[in-house]
């Protein structure tokens, strides 16, 4: 999904400077994944969104390899004749030996070439291949694990393809095989076992064992170094899968993960430290209008407000203009996704807001699909009642308008007492009576199948957040994906996110975390954790993340209760922001989009490829490793003007800021410009990989030129002298 963003920030300086110096004419890149043209989970998004920039770099020499699945091919792929003769010969050769290999264009942005292999067609070789696997590395595959057997078929077929291809090429090119996740891993270590001349890269997006261990509510991160990994995998009956994953990790030239936190996990569970971290990006589409995302926020918020009006009919004793929408969304993994800690923090927030007599109301949405039995009658009725009031008001308005018009036509000022007759009042009274309600507004919008055992509902029952009028925090649990055709809340996910004020994702296990990244690109602040890949990434790149609307919860080094207290304070301080402060914060959040754009993040994949070539073909390529893997590239300092978050504001009274609001100096353009300058041009931040003699020269030139054009600015919060002084000025 390309996410739109505004032009409020022009392309960051430094981005364009970086150019790939590698001579790619004689190199070919194959990217192998089970999720190529096959939507299973998050890896699909990674590969699909990344295709465009990879294609820009590699052009005709970029091929994706995935499984052939009839349904997917019919909807996503245009089958064509391979333009590359070596590829054509390879495919023909395999097809004459009983394989079914297809070639086409994947109909996504850029239209990359895909090679799709039908594993069912060669299933008859399974046993022969399993024997080979057993004889070469003593890994056996249980017959009942279909996914693992598929992985073997897919692995042998990709290795066959790559071997055949390298034999078919007359002029031996440098081949890179980039494999994603364990399902593709068999192909990788087979390439190595068969000693194919291929530079290999293996990327894990999460570890098999990590996912299992976290799902089993183990104190994961504190025991990371203590696990007996063989035993844990064996006990969970995933030993054969784990062996395939570890074999791939062990054999690959370059090993990468998607985040620092997964790097730590991989180091302990897969016993190899990743050579480089390759974070996931998004395709950021730019709007032509400035601050378009703010307008979209207002529009979408209005639709959510309409829903809330209906949902809370009869209990609308709070001011919708002072209502803040929080949301959590994702797979229904109660504790992995942090719904537990979020609910607890909401209960505490409710107490804080009540005790402090706050005017703010919070509506927290839980968008997590669970098993349901369609919509709840009470919620549907709410929307119907709202609709009815709207119709009644409109009918009265029509009559009123007509009378007014007639009276003006004859030249009289209208007699206000005659404007509404008895009938109108009766109609309106009847409509008001219909809004009476003796029960609280429902928590859950659907009828849950496992109502009595549902963890979210049970926690809500325990902490007593029943949407009563005294509660300042209201909860709505929407256990289904959002859809623009829903009779309840007719918005799609993107619109919904845009209409909310804050996304809350306090996950315990989240290798990357696309949800907060999407929020950021849409200019919506979010809470993530230092156990999520996204949180780690942002922490590295921004000096004061919360000023930019990126709140990072510490769940790694703190006890659960402390984390919960911290989350509560984040939520509370967010509630105390004035409208203007929120707008400023959204502007800042949105400026971070460039950080998450593949245009920027794609370079880590480039590094990985260069490193792989240098490792596999040391005679032809050299690579100087980057000294700092952390904090490469952008480093956003504290924003220049007043931080929007009252938690770091100097005012003691929360109301104080309201009155002084207008005194705050905030210049969007000025601040954005500062941000742009503060970004370290990538050429400066680390040695550029060396590519033969020629390349090296080119890159050093690039780095000196950018040095000259960009003033060196401080990157750590401690030496931010200029922003601090502006703050002091302001206070006076």
């Amino acid at each position, binding site marked *: 999904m390309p996410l739109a963003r505004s032009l409020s920030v022009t392309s960051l300086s430094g981005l364009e400077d970086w150019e790939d110096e590698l001579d790619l004419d004689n190199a070919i890149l194959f990217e192998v994944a089970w999720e190529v043209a096959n939507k299973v989970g998050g890896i699909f998004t990674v590969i699909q969104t990344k295709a465009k920039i990879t294609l820009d770099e590699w052009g005709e020499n970029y091929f994706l390899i995935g499984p052939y699945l009839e349904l997917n091919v019919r909807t996503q792929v245009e089958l064509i004749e391979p333009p590359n003769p070596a590829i054509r010969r390879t495919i023909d050769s395999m097809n004459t030996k009983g394989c079914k290999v297809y070639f086409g264009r994947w109909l996504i942005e850029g239209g990359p070439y895909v090679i799709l292999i039908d594993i069912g067609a060669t*299933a008859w070789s399974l046993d022969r291949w399993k024997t080979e696997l057993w004889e070469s590395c003593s890994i056996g595959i*249980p017959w009942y694990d279909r996914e693992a057997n598929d992985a073997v078929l897919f692995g042998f077929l990709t290795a066959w393809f790559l071997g055949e291809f390298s034999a078919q090429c007359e002029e031996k090119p440098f081949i890179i095989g980039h494999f994603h996740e364990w399902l593709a891993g068999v192909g990788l270590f087979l390439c190595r076992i068969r000693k194919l001349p291929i530079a290999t890269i293996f990327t894990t997006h999460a570890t098999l064992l990590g996912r299992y261990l976290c799902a089993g509510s183990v104190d994961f991160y504190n025991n990371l170094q203590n696990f007996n990994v063989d035993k844990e995998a064996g006990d969970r009956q995933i030993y054969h899968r784990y062996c395939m994953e570890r074999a791939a990790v062990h054999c690959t030239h370059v090993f990468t993960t998607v985040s620092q936190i997964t790097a730590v996990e991989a180091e302990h569970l897969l016993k190899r430290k990743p050579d480089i971290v390759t974070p996931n990006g998004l395709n950021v589409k730019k709007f032509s209008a400035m601050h378009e995302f703010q307008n979209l926020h207002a529009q979408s918020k209005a639709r959510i407000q309409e829903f809330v009006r209906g949902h809370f009919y009869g209990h609308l004793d709070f001011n919708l203009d002072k209502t803040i929408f929080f949301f959590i969304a994702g797979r229904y993994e109660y504790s992995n996704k942090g719904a537990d800690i979020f609910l607890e923090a909401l209960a505490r927030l409710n107490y804080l807001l009540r005790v402090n007599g706050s005017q703010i109301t919070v509506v927290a949405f839980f968008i997590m699909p669970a098993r349901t039995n369609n919509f709840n009658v009470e919620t549907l009725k709410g929307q119907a009642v709202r609709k009815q009031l709207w119709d009644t008001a409109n009918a009265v308005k029509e009559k009123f308008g007509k009378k007014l018009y007639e009276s003006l036509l004859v030249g009289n000022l209208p007699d206000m007492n005659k404007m509404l007759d008895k009938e109108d009042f009766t109609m309106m009274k009847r409509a008001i009576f219909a809004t009476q309600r003796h029960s609280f507004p429902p928590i859950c919008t659907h009828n849950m199948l496992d109502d009595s055992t549902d963890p979210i509902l049970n926690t809500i029952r325990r902490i007593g957040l029943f949407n009563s009028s005294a509660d300042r925090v209201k909860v709505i649990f929407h256990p289904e994906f959002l859809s623009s055709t829903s009779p309840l809340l007719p918005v799609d996910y993107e619109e919904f996110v845009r209409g909310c004020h804050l996304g809350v994702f306090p996950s315990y296990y989240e290798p990357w975390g696309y949800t907060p990244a999407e929020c950021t690109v849409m200019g919506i602040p979010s809470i993530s954790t230092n156990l999520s890949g996204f949180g780690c990434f942002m922490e590295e790149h921004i000096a004061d993340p919360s000023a930019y609307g990126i709140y990072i919860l510490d769940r790694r080094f703190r006890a659960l209760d402390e984390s919960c207290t911290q989350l509560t304070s984040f939520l509370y301080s967010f509630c105390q922001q004035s409208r203007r402060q929120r707008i400023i914060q959204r502007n800042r959040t949105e400026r971070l989009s460039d950080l998450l754009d593949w245009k920027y993040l794609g370079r880590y994949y480039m590094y990985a490829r260069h490193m792989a070539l240098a490792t596999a073909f040391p005679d032809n390529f050299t690579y100087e490793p980057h000294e700092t893997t952390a904090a490469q590239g952008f480093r956003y300092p504290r924003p220049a003007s007043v931080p929007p978050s009252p938690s770091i504001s100097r005012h003691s009274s929360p109301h104080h800021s309201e009155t002084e609001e207008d005194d705050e100096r905030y210049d969007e353009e000025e601040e954005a410009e500062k941000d742009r300058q503060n970004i370290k041009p990538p050429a400066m931040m680390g040695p550029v990989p060396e590519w033969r003699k020629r390349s090296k020269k080119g890159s050093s030139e690039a780095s000196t030129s950018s040095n000259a054009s960009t003033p060196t600015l401080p990157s750590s919060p401690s030496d931010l002298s200029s922003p601090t002084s502006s703050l002091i000025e302001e206070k006076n």
Partner: protein
Amino acid sequence: MPVTDQAFVTLATNDVYCHGALVLGQSLRNYRTSRRLAILITPQVSRAMRAALRTIFDSVVDVKEIDSNDLMHLTLLKRLELGVTFTKLHCWTLTQYSKCVFMDADTLVLCNVDELFEREEFSAAPDPGWPDCFNSGVFVFQPSLKTFKHLLQFANEHGSFDGGDQGLLNSFFSSWATKDINKHLPFIYNLSSSTVYTYAPAFQHFGKDTKVIHFLGPAKPWNYKYNPQTRTVTQNDSTPVSENQLPFLELWWIIYRSSILPLLEKLQEPPIQQEEPNMNNDEQTSERENPLINNSLPASTNAECISESVVNPPCELSAKNNIAVKKAECSLEEDIVEPSKSFTEFSVQPVPQQTLVTNEFTSSVAEVAVQPEPKESSADERRKWEEGHIDYLGKDAFENIKKKLDAFLL
């Protein structure tokens, strides 16, 4: 008074199903059946398991599908997909008995069910999925070589509409649904556990009278985790087990732990709990080590005491002998066309129980056929992996795999 010419018959095509068969046999013994117990097994069953079976069953009958008779052989070649089905049909050859009751290895009796022998051939209970068909998990039959031959001929001509024995038998005994109500066994003689909640009130009302429970579906009792302290059964992926099914699963496990586990330990066949590992491994071992630290966190595992408790079975040779005989006889040699059919089928179809069993059966045939020079121990170890019995704390540790890989990476 023991009746020697009537028997309960079951079937196990591999070691995993043997665990089920042992529990079934023990449950029949517990309720003091006066009939004989017989089991049909295929060559895949290991020697240690055979020994265990012999202690509970009066008769352990080895079914060698290929040398049984010509007709069988021909039919099998023609309709390879019905491999396991034919194994089941072998029960009609047990002519030393005048009447038998067949019970699947995934059933469990909850009381004495000897009254089933008052029924005639062919009596069975309706299938919950299609009540006009009977479920072939429990049925009364009369062994007869003539019937056996007719069944084979029928299979040869018509095949099976569901690819398994149930389809075949339903076509063969097609008058069951309409002709004689006495041949309808009450549902409580073959209550499939998975249907328990589709008609909850009926289960509430009649469930207490259940006599035979049938663990239909992909999740068998031995696929669950069992915590011996709390005596609770949980599923592997931590999804809760259906409440109605729970007592039956617990019962299965109680019998397994109290009777079968000691037996297997005596005979050194690795029992499920240690092979199909789970959280209670820790608890189980700590129980042995020190009963006071039962509630230790799962993270505080003690690798050493666990490796002690896992018994490595010696490589058995008996299964190998069978394979060697088979290899000579079927002379499939390098011909991989035969297994190919069933594998294509395996990868296309979803995973109903029957196909899995079929696949597993053929895979072991294929193993013999394809392997050029099967090293006795290596093939055996591979078989263990493929059955999910991996010695991951011992010789199969990743360190050893790594050494093999490193040999290639030089």
